[in-house]
């Protein structure tokens, strides 16, 4: 009776949850929540992956790889999440990570992320080369609703049914033979009273179950409001015949009223802005707008960008070390032909309008850059698989096949952007991984006491201006750690710098389930 109704409701709830789980934007970056970091912990090279939880408070998983030179060894690896507002003094002591595999230098552990916001995960390696610590910024945000699986639904419905019927039976006994003194037999009147009590109890119990379900529903709704959403922005283009200006304005009231911390330059830029033309994803631009005021980003658009509808992604890092991607869409009008210049970069801004692209078919794929050099993506020979950690390895050679030395581009050997063709994944990567340099910097200032819990940098403009890039040696090859979060067709734009020019290579990749 009422229970079939309850089952239907449970089922409906489960299916709504499942749909909601699919529809959600899953990260401070878009659709790519896992954090990859390649760097140093003291004298050790470390390769760290953090898989944040879908809900906060929740458990993140961390794996740490420490490839050590011969003769050296690692005694233990300690992992410790540090919350922005409390710093190390307000964080529990770290946990010793477990060695995952005797043959591989890999350690694993769990991180308890109890508050939403910006965390830094301290990875301390202790061994024959002494102890060293790396800190990896991780954004803890609620990202999705968990569906109630079918087996669990069945178990809960059956046990619930058992409890309701059991309670009704207990009520019957309590109102009838439970009141009959030993030695006497139950009279028909007493038995009737028991049945009547059970008949009244059933709808009351059903009502209680319904109340519980409503309560559950309201909790689920309240939870949904806590799901992460990037700051709201409005984007528009002002144009004349000869120039176009793109403006992004933050509309989020929390940000405008100062409840969200201000924005910090990352690689010396307040925003890394990416434009990708729909629907073919054939035009790409990486620009760096200025901020005429605290809520507005503005940049002149390259004259060579053809007209069309563009997806806009703006990567920013807050003073609390929290990084996120703002998203919008704009339509670019045509410019007068005389105003169009043909160069593909200007200063640190660079774009690619040529349709040319390489498709990765293992083991390699090459694409010719605008200066005639060859950018080659080499793979380990295996096809790309969703969820598998891999190293995206590239090198640059001249027409004779000789390595070509690269200059640092915004402090990095290269920048790459990975995007799924439906836009559900978008992330800005470097050889050091997914983490932003600015977030690393913010946490080190925080530990020294140079910022407040609210994230205001007390050193003022000097600290803002001197955010250094990572010192790096010149190289012709680089590798980027990453795992494609889901199967599908992806686009990769890889950018390197030679002399004054920034060169962009485009690749297609299919990722298997």
């Amino acid at each position: 009776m009422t229970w079939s109704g309850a089952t239907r409701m449970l089922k409906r709830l489960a299916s709504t949850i499942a749909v909601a789980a699919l529809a959600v934007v899953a990260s401070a970056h878009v659709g790519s929540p896992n954090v990859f970091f390649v760097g140093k912990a003291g004298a050790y090279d470390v390769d760290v992956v953090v898989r944040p939880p879908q809900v906060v408070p929740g458990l993140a998983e961390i794996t740490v790889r420490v490839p050590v030179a011969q003769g050296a060894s690692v005694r233990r690896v300690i992992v410790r999440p540090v919350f922005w507002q409390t710093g190390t003094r307000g964080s529990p002591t770290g946990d010793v990570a477990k060695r995952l595999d005797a043959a591989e230098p890999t350690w694993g552990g769990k991180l308890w992320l109890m508050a939403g916001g910006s965390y830094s995960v301290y990875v301390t390696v202790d061994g024959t080369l002494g102890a060293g610590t790396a800190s990896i910024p991780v954004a803890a945000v609620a990202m999705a609703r968990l569906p109630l699986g079918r087996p669990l639904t069945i178990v809960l419905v059956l046990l619930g049914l058992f409890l309701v019927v059991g309670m009704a039976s207990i009520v019957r006994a309590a109102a009838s033979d439970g009141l009959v003194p030993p030695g006497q037999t139950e009279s028909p009147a007493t038995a009737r009273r028991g049945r009547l009590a059970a008949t009244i109890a059933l709808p009351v119990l059903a009502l209680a179950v319904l109340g519980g379900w409503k309560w559950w529903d309201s909790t689920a709704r309240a939870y949904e409001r806590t799901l992460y959403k990037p700051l709201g922005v409005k984007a528009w283009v002002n144009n004349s015949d000869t120039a176009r200006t793109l403006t992004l304005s933050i509309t989020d009231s929390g940000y405008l009223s100062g409840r969200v911390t201000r924005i910090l330059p990352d690689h010396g830029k307040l925003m890394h802005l990416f434009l990708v033309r729909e629907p073919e994803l054939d035009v790409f631009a990486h620009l760096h707008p200025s901020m005429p005021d605290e809520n507005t980003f503005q940049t002149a658009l390259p004259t060579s960008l053809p007209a069309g509808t563009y997806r806009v992604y703006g990567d920013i890092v807050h003073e609390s070390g929290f990084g996120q991607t703002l998203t919008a869409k704009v339509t670019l009008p045509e410019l007068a032909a005389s105003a169009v210049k043909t160069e593909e970069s200007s200063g640190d801004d660079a774009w690619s309008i040529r349709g040319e692209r390489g498709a990765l078919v293992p083991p390699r794929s090459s694409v010719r850059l605008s200066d005639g050099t060859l950018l080659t993506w080499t793979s380990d020979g295996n096809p790309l698989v969703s969820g598998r950690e891999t190293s995206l390895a590239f090198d640059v050679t001249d027409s004779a096949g000789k390595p070509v030395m690269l200059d640092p581009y915004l402090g990095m050997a290269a920048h790459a952007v990975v995007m799924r063709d439906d836009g559900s994944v978008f992330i800005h990567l470097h050889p050091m991984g997914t983490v932003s340099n600015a977030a690393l910097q913010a946490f080190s200032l925080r530990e020294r006491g140079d910022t407040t819990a609210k994230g205001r940098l007390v050193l003022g403009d000097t600290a803002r201006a001197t955010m250094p890039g990572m010192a790096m040696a010149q190289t012709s090859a680089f590798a980027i750690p990453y795992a494609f979060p889901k199967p599908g067709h992806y686009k990769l734009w890889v950018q390197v710098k030679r002399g004054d020019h920034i060169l962009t290579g485009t690749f297609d990749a299919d990722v298997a389930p």
Partner: protein
Amino acid sequence: MSTTLERLLPIRRRLATARSAERAVAIPWYLYAVAIASTLVNVGIIWDISWHMTIGRDSFWTPAHLCTYLSALIVGVTCGYVALRTTFAGTAQERERSVSLWGFRAPLGAWICVWGSFAMLTSAPFDNWWHDAYGLDVQIISPPHTLLALGMISIVIGALVWTLAWQNRGTELANDPEARHRLHQLFAFAAGLLISMFAIYVTEYSYRGYQHGSQFYRVSAMAFPVVLVALSRASNMRWSATWAALCYMGVRIAMGWILPLFPATAKLGPIFNPMTHMAAMEFPLLLIGPAIAIDLLSRRLGKDASPGRDWITAPLFGLAFVVAFLVVQWPFADFLHSPLARNWFFFSDRNFTYNMRPQSLYMTYKYFIRSADPSAGAFAIGMLVAVVYASISARVGLAWGRWMSKVQR
């Protein structure tokens, strides 16, 4: 050799005498077993709350959780054994003391206990999913926790009803005043554990910082009269609600003294308040005050009043509860905020969790601003509403108490 044996003989004789004395006090072992399970339920949940306040990290295997599982296990084994034995190998007397459920026979209290352990079992996967879906909360009041609480409360109620059936029949122990006394003690203890369960469920509304706002009295007026009035009426014992309230306070005070003896540090961040020892829940509410008032009123009005008269007496019980509770708890809340309570005896300085901010109202011994009524008039109206709630709660308690006083099996 022989001398050793001779020396041991008197001990053996004494042991034998003790055993036969125990047999003379014919309280069946399973009443003790479910009383122990009820105790473990209470100890487990208070320990678990302290664990969440201090250490924070939760897993299936925390000692507090094991304590709770042990109670469910004791209930399962005891009631399962009693039901199987009564159904298939019970004496005529045992069968007469039981009720039939789905073809099996066992005392009513045992069935309530069994239901409780199944409710606890059901809440486990539900709660696990809940934590995965909405976060590793430290919330006491959520749907799966409510199911768990219903299960735990059922175990305690089952123990109480089982004990009462023995008390109400009176026939088996008619000639054994010592056993009757022991039965009263068991009843008072189980009743205290029941009050404790109700008190734990409303913890989030009864922190000392709330105790000068009418909301606290309204919540208390819903939760406590039902159980105090029912206990007062259910037993043929004098001062039954009072003894039960004392047992509740005793359990909570004992836990408040014992837990902070153990060193512990927080294993979860953010830590705003570094911990050195296990935290304790607050000093218990002074329910002894309203319990005395209710017992007095109950004796004055007679325990056997008709259901019709209960409608008239319920508001009297409601009023008595609110007035007596206000009179004792209001000044006591001031005391708990004062430096006089910051010691091992009243443990007001041991109620802080790792994630409380040292500058917070709670940690600076101040009343919560949000709990204050906007005006004296609003407070008066709030308290009148509390009397209405308490009257409804008391009416339910009267009916429940009437039933408990009649239960035979």
